[in-house]
Each structure stands twice: as C-alpha cells, then as structure tokens.
C-alpha cells in the first residue's frame, strides 16, 4: 500500500520536461482549479481553415501576451514625441540607440534607416518572448521551432525584398551567382547558392530555437533531479544551479534577440548590396 502510494507520487512528481517545452492546446494558470476539474489548465479553442490547423495554442497566447505587453510599454514610452526621455523610454532608447548606431547603421549605412522599424520590432518581439518565457506558468514561444521559423521567414522575405528592390528581380538572382564562372561549374554552383540562400533563415530559426530550448531544459533538468533522485537534499545543490542558469537565461534572452537582429541586418545588407 505504502509502496503503491510512493510509486504513484513518483510518477506524479516526474517532471515532464519535453511537455513543458512543447506547445499545448491549453494554458496553465495558477489558482485556477475548479474542484480539480481543470487542474490549473485552461483549454484553448481549436480552429481549422483551408485544411490548416490554426488552433490558438499556448505559444500563440504567450506570443500575444508578449506582443500586447510590448505594444503597451512602447506606446506608453513613445506615444508623445519627447526630446528628453524618462523612465521606461530611457531603457528602450538605450537599446534602440545601440542597435541603430552599433549594428544597423555601421552595417547598412544610411540605407539602414529604412529597415530600422523592422529590425527594432524584430529585436523587441524576440526579446519580450524570450523574457516572458522565464516567468513561471508562462512558456517560451521562441523555444518553439515553428515560431522561430515564422520570424526567420519574415526576415527572409525582407532580405529577398531588399535584394529585389535594390537590384531588380533579375539582377538580384543574377547577383547570387558569382560572375565570370565557367558555365560547367554553374551546374554545381546554382544548387550551392540556392542552399546558401536558404541556410540563412534556417540558421536564424534553429539558433534561436535551440538556445531558448536548451536553457529551459537545463533549468528543468536541475529541478527534475530533485524528483528523480527522490530526495529534498538534492535541492541544496540543484536549486542554486537552476537559479544560476535562470540568470544566464535572462542574459541569453537579450543576446539571442540581438544575434537574430544582427544576422538579419547582415543578411539584408548582403542581399541589398551583393557586390560587397
């Protein structure tokens, strides 16, 4: 009897790491537990259009929360044009100034001002998703490869768009292939260049996904050790480690948002000016 209870407890106590990271058709909320019916889980509506599953999942909801948070804070900070920033606006401005003066303008030149709204939005969107994922009961939308794929796709489209806008449709695709190459080599070169083109968004997508997932798995593994080894003494070691990784995750949240933006900038710049 006692053994059964312990086994059941152990089964309950197993930390579902992958389940925590994966998308799900419900959101978890604290204190929502109507007589154990919901068990803290609120189901989300499923939706299907033209044969595509457009269900509102947990990551969609989190993404929306992040977006609303971002929009509300940004509008509060910058709704009115002000010369002297204060409070929140100062914080955002420092980041925007850094991105503008250290990343976008040095890479793209004056041309970069056109892409600045896109790149800034990209950075803050990813940043907010990253940081929101660190809050308990939340989820990391950017730790889902489909979300990062969507963002990488946006970046990819802007990249191609910049290339076509600056070089013309034919000029852009011609610029992908180095000039002065013997025609025989083109048989190899064309597929290579196409792969090279597609690898860019793929790299963006996988890098962000892997980084965000990795950190969360690490935190969960450290905490999971407590239940796996079934001893609360493990917490003495594993909780500080988890906290340390949590701190690291905050930093990584910034760094990955920055890296995504930086690489997008570089890719867009390369597409716009293929000659250098």
């Amino acid at each position, binding site marked *: 009897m006692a053994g059964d209870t312990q086994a059941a407890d152990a089964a309950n106590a197993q930390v579902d790491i992958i389940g925590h*990271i994966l998308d799900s058709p419900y959101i978890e909320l604290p204190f929502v537990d109507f007589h154990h019916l919901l068990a803290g889980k609120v189901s989300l509506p499923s939706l299907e259009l033209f044969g595509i599953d457009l*269900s*509102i999942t947990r990551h969609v909801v989190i*993404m929306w929360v992040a*977006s609303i948070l971002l929009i509300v804070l*940004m*509008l509060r900070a*910058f709704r009115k044009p002000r010369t002297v920033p204060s409070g929140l606006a100062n914080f955002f401005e420092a980041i925007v100034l850094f991105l503008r003066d250290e990343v976008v303008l040095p890479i793209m030149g004056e041309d970069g001002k056109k892409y600045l709204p896109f790149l800034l*939005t990209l950075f803050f969107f990813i940043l907010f998703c990253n940081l929101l994922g660190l809050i308990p009961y939340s989820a990391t939308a950017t730790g889902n490869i489909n979300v990062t794929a969507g963002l990488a796709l*946006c970046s990819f489209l802007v990249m191609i768009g910049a290339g076509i806008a600056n070089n013309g449709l034919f000029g852009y695709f011609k610029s992908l292939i180095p000039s002065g190459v013997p025609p025989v080599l083109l048989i190899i070169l064309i597929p290579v260049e196409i792969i090279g083109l597609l690898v860019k968004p793929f790299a963006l997508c996988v890098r962000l996904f892997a980084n965000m997932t990795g950190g969360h798995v690490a935190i969960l593994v450290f905490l999971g050790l407590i239940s796996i080894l079934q001893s609360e003494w493990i917490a003495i070691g594993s909780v500080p480690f988890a906290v340390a990784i949590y701190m690291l995750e905050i930093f990584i949240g910034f760094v990955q948002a920055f890296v995504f933006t930086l690489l997008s900038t570089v890719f867009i710049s390369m597409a716009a000016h293929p000659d250098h």
Partner: protein
Amino acid sequence: MLLDPHAGLIIWTIITFLVVLFVLKKFAWPHLLAALDEREKRISDAIAAAEQARQEAEEVLREHRQKLAAADEEARQVVAEAREAGANVRQTIVSQAREEAERMLDQARTSIESEKRAAIAELRRETAHLAVQAAGALIDANLDDEKNRGLVDDFIARIPESN
C-alpha cells in the same frame, strides 16, 4: 516532437509579428527615431554653435590684444614724440633766452658807451665852461698881463682831446 512542423503556428507567428510591426511602426518608432535624430541634431548644433562662439571669442581676444599692443605702441610713440618736442622747445627757449640776453647785453653796452661819451662831452663842455669862467676871472684880474695869456693858452693846450 521538438521539431514537429506546425504550419498554423508559423502563420500565427507571422500574423502576430506583422501586427506588432504595424502598430509599432505607426505609433512608436517614428516618434522615437525622430526624437533621437532631433536630439542628435540639437547636440551637434549646440556643439557647432559653441565651437563658433569659441572661435569668435578667440578672434575678438586676438583683435583686442592687437589693439592693446597698438595702443601701447602708440602711447610709447606719443611719449617719445612729446619728449622730443619738449627737448626741442627747451632748446629753442634756452637759445632764445641766450640770444635775448646777448642782445640786451649788447644794448646795455652800447647804451653805456653812448652815455659815457655823452658824459665825457658834457664834462668837457662843463670843464671848458669852467675853464672859460676861470679864464674870464683871470682875464678880469690880469688880462693886461701878456705872460698870463700865454699861461692860459698853455693850459688849454695841455687838456687832452679825450680820455
């Protein structure tokens, strides 16, 4: 499971991102970027203005220094000129005074000479007169004496023409 493709989520991501992009592009970024540009412009303007003011101040300072030096030089020149003029005036006055003194001395000398001459003539006239009177008296007394007449003639002849 981690890598399961899910087209719906990709679409939702793109939609969400585009909405955020639209809202921020419309309401936040223009203000922010314009404020940054404006502040930068203001600061660079202020720096340029300060630089210009500094240059102007330097120019003015240089001018003033030049003016001061010129004024100094002029003052020195004026003093030198005045000194020279003073020396000239003194020279003139002294020489004039000397000339005047010389002239006065000469005048005095001539006047003394003429007075003396007049005095001598007067004396001579007076003496002659006295002599004549004396002679008259003598003649009155002993004119008849031929020998006395000879004495008077001798006396008169003995008086020098001038002394």
